[in-house]
Structures are given as structure tokens and as C-alpha cells.
């Protein structure tokens, strides 16, 4: 009340600086998790690094549009997925015909067919599927499916968070996830069994 204007200004500036530093520190603490999602959304490590740097550059500039207490990781990923689209990721021609999808149990059934029911034991699954085959299968998915699968399966986001990040309805997240995972399993079956 008795404060003079320069004092109020000074306090406001100090509060803002403190909030900004806290924001920057919280955002940086999530960098590893942001990177691991980025890495699976793009083809190379270099692209992922660039994308994460652009994301943090933008986040630091527009930190005031983040609402404290909300999901900061989702907020960062929203910037990242938008930048990824803006950067003109290779436009993928939508196939005239959607690939025929096999059911959810397709890979499991194929593995059983090839080597018997015991192949479904956890350790055997890992033996049969190489790390490369998983990474390749993920990168072969059409973008829309891959974005959703990566956010939910690698980023461990809920359907609701993924919907917000990609700006699509939850129902679309569910169907893209479902179809994306089926395609992933088909790809793995082809690579692994054949």
C-alpha cells in the first residue's frame, strides 16, 4: 500500500525471473524423456537432436503460456510434435488402399505356428525379436500411427494426454493406436518369421 511504484515493479520482475528459472529447470529435467520420444518420431539421431533443441528454444521463449501445475512433459511434446510437422517431415503419400490388417493376436499366432505354443514364454519372445527389428518396424509405420504409438508406448502418455498433444479426439488416438500396433506386429512377423 505504501509501496512506491519502482518497488512494486522490482518485486514483480524478481518474481517473474524466479518463475522463469524454475520453469527452465523443470523443463530441462525432462529433456531425457523428451529426447527418447523425439528419437522415435524421426529417422536419425541428428534430426532428433535438432528437434529437441528447437523445442526447448521455443519453450524457453514462450514459457509464460505454460500453466504451472499442468503436465509440462505433455506441453513440451505438443510443441515438439507441432514443430515436427512444421519442419515438413517428409510428406507421406496416403496409400490409396489401406493395408489389410491382421488381428491383434497375429504375431503371437504366427510365432506359435512357426515354433509351437511354448515360444510365447516371455524370454522366448525377447530371443526371437531383435532390437533392430523393433526399431525398424516402428520407423516403418505411417506417421500418424507412429506418432500415437510412440507417445503411448514409448512416452507412456495416457490416451487423454496423447489426444491433447496431437490435437485429435481420444477416439482417434484409440483407433490409430490399435491400427498402428497391428501394423507393427505384422511388420515384426514378416521380419522375424520369414
Amino acid at each position, binding site marked *: 500500500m505504501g509501496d512506491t511504484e519502482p518497488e512494486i515493479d522490482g518485486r514483480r520482475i524478481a518474481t517473474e525471473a524466479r518463475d522463469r528459472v524454475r520453469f527452465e529447470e523443470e523443463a530441462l529435467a525432462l529433456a531425457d524423456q523428451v529426447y527418447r520420444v523425439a528419437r522415435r518420431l524421426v529417422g536419425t539421431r541428428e534430426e532428433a537432436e535438432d528437434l529437441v*533443441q528447437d523445442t526447448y528454444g521455443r519453450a524457453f521463449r514462450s514459457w509464460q503460456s505454460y500453466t504451472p501445475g499442468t503436465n509440462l512433459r505433455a506441453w513440451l511434446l505438443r510443441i515438439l510434435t507441432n514443430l515436427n510437422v512444421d519442419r515438413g517431415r517428409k510428406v507421406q503419400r496416403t496409400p490409396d488402399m489401406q493395408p489389410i490388417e491382421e488381428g491383434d493376436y497375429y504375431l503371437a499366432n504366427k510365432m506359435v505356428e512357426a515354433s509351437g505354443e511354448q515360444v510365447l514364454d516371455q524370454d522366448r519372445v525377447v530371443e526371437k525379436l531383435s532390437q533392430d527389428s523393433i526399431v525398424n518396424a516402428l520407423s516403418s509405420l505411417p506417421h500418424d500411427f507412429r506418432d500415437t504409438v510412440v507417445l503411448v508406448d514409448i512416452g507412456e502418455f495416457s490416451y487423454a494426454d496423447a489426444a491433447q498433444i496431437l490435437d485429435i479426439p481420444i477416439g482417434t488416438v*484409440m483407433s490409430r493406436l490399435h491400427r498402428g500396433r497391428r501394423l507393427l506386429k505384422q511388420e515384426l512377423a514378416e521380419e522375424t518369421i520369414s
Partner: protein
Amino acid sequence: MSHTPCDACEELLQGYLDRELTGSEVVQAESHLDGCDYCRRRYRFEESLRQYVQTTAVERMPVGLMEKLTQLRTEP
């Protein structure tokens, strides 16, 4: 092997593994799984596949990136 209940079980697979089913759907899935060895094995397979995808597809941040990000901070 009867297909109808197993098809219904397969339908619920995704939501079940993602823990996004409603209470009554969880009951439906679990009561089928309790009695069906075929689906139980496949659910377990899907669960380990999902964990495996998660662990194998994760790549740690390259050395040096954190420093580059820190330099982007706006503070003086």
C-alpha cells in the same frame, strides 16, 4: 476353440493392457481370461511384447545435448 468369446476378449485387449477399460469391461475381460488358456497366453505375450518394445526402442540422450539445451536458457 470357440471364436466368439475369444474375439470379444481380443477386442478388449488394447484397453486392458493400457489400463483404460471401464470397470465392467475389466470384469468381462478377466472373467474370460480366467477360463481361457488361449487368450491368457496371448495377453501375456502382448504384455511382454509391449514391455520389450518400450525398453528396446529407448535411446538415451546423446552426450552434449543437455549442455546445448542449457545454453538456450533465457537468463543472463
